[in-house]
């Protein structure tokens, strides 16, 4: 904690204040966009722990997001009187089990085979979603009415904009902080080592398969948590949540934001959410423009937005020190 300087503290404090006051400052629709962006921020950060930190390119992250999303809806629809937090707990447990099963099967593969197998598993889960009509609603999706959350101090209603915003901010914000802490733990460092030199890591006595499995399950559960909130925000879940589109989305967000920095994907998620909202106002062909932005970023700014920011900061510093 000694690394925190007063300026950083002031910055963090200011940001917190703004976030807390957001429902008072923003119109309802903007608040909803922020809520959605926070949800996608966690989704993208969990993805980046795989991609940026461990160097594992997964094309199947939507299966966790989707399982979390559907499990929440199914639990709330079928178990009468289930509380909101228990529904989320059940959803996380389900993603945990899915993560363990899939992770165990993927343990020994790396590189391209890993990517392709995750794609295959995503397709499998999408197919289950389509075919298991009685549970998932198939193409029709599932709607739900989320129960109110009774806290000691008051009642939170997930169908109310500010309430779901605060719930998202606290729980998903907490999860994001936890991720940040995680990257600084011994386990977090061993993940980096996994990316840099797995052979050496094994020589040092680590069981790299276990490290990979833990990371895979951990990021899966985080994505499931994001999915669960996605369902609550919309009061509805459709196959979109488990589709390949949802995987591409997180890939785009993560790359746009930059994989090298922890906050990169957060930036990417906000950027994506807002740009999509803006572009889809102008044209129905917004995915085309989004694709172009992606190509330009990969070609000319492979570090993403966070990379651009760092470049800029470095340049400014150089300019001021040169004076």
């Amino acid at each position, binding site marked *: 904690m000694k690394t925190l300087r007063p300026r950083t503290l002031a910055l963090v404090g200011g940001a917190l204040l703004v976030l807390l006051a957001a429902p008072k400052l923003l119109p309802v629709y903007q608040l909803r966009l922020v809520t959605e962006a926070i949800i996608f921020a966690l989704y993208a950060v969990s993805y980046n722990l795989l991609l940026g930190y461990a160097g594992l390119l997964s094309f199947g992250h939507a299966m966790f997001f989707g399982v979390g999303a559907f499990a929440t809806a199914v639990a709330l629809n079928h178990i009468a009187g289930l509380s909101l937090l228990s529904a989320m707990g059940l959803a996380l447990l389900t993603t945990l089990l899915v993560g363990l099963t899939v992770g165990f099967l993927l343990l020994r593969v790396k590189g391209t085979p890993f990517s392709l197998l995750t794609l295959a598993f995503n397709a499998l889960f999408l197919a289950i979603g389509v075919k298991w009509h009685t549970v998932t609603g198939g193409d029709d999706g599932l709607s739900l009415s989320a129960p109110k959350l009774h806290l000691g101090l008051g009642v939170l209603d997930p169908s109310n904009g500010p309430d779901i915003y605060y719930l998202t901010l606290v729980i998903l914000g907490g999860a994001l902080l936890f991720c940040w802490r995680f990257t600084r733990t011994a386990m977090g460092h061993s993940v980096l080592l996994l990316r840099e030199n797995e052979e050496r890591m094994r020589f040092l006595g680590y069981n790299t398969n276990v490290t990979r499995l833990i990371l895979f399950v951990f990021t899966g559960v985080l994505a499931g948590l994001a999915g669960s909130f996605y369902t609550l925000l919309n009061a509805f879940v459709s196959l979109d949540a488990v589709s390949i589109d949802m995987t591409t989305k997180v890939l785009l967000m993560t790359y746009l934001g930059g994989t090298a920095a922890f906050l990169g994907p957060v930036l990417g998620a906000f950027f994506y959410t807002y740009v999509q909202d803006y572009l*889809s106002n102008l044209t129905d062909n917004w995915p085309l423009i989004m694709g172009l932005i992606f190509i330009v970023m990969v070609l000319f700014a492979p570090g993403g937005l966070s990379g651009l920011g760092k470049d800029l900061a470095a340049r400014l510093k150089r300019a001021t020190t040169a004076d």
Partner: protein
Amino acid sequence: MRKFAIVCLTLALGLVLAAGAQAAETIKLAVMEPLSGNFKDIGDRYAEGVKFAAEVINAKGGINGQKLEVILVDSELNPAVATRKATKLIMQDNVRHFCGGTGSSVAGAMEALGDKHNTLFFTYGMAAASLTGDKCNRNFFRTCASTDMQSYALATWVAQQGFKKVFCIAQDYSFGKEATAAFIKKLKELNPSVEIVGEVLHPLGTKDFAPYVSQIISSGAEVVFTSNWGNDLTLLLKQARPLGLKAKFAGYYLNDDLMVKAVADDEAVIGSVSAEIYMLSIPGQANADFIAGFTQANGFYPTWLRGKAYAATMFWAEAVKKAGNDKVDDVIKAWEGLTYDGPAGKWTMRACDHQVQQPVWIAEMVADNPYFKHAYVGPATMVAPEKISVPCQETGCKGFAK
């Protein structure tokens, strides 16, 4: 720089005020249709119907003195996309009324939104019976026939004609299954001696119907029921005749002129019948006036989907008129039990499940018709609403929560 900022601010403020002023004057109706992709031609035709209805309404001074503004939204046939776009319209532009005809998945998403924001959604095309059955919703209205009603109408016709051997073929998903089950149920009820000589469900997007057609031929069926639509209907009709099938089809969507054009073989459709809530050949002055007006404005006929969407929008407008304002709660109350006498006969909105009670029209496909050079619908005969109605207690709708 400062000046520029002030100019910008003033401009923005002006725009906001202008938008606000406009909002007070118009009633907004958002049309959620696939306006791109595979089902664009379906969405476009529905949208044309709604737009024409708005033109007619506005030409007569609007609803309760307010102009009707139609907002076209591309749902991409994706509930997540529909939710995102509709949420924005609700929260930012204060849109309260929505309609759409394609994709029961979109309907589910819109029902969820309706619950959350108290918006109204009406469909002129989504047929799944469950939408006004066990999934019925206070904020959801259907102005077209459900699969039950459309299948019942076809069963009534098959029973009247005295056919003894019937074959059923449908797409293998909830809609196809629901349609077939309802058809068989009603047919058995009307004529217990009818024999269902075969029942086939094939995958959506089947390319080769030869195995199914030979199955139909060997079954000795006199008539073939099908709820197929799109390419699955075109290919079925196109391939059946060359393979030697003589039996006629009794189908949901044979009065789709684009489909008949795509089959490009009049002999393949002539003699088969179609059952729909709107077709060009419905008798009466109201329909003649509608066709004349639409054709004059657009240069083509208001076939099938266009007519369905038009009549639906006019019906909704009647409800808003009766309510005296466009507040959702008032419109819901006004619409329940309301009767509308339009181009497709007398429609009544049932209060118990928000399913319209209306006639379904049956017409045989004939070579000589006043509309097209290719075969199209002949004179339409009415199957009365009472004959195809599903009683309230049998729909599965357990009443509205609110």
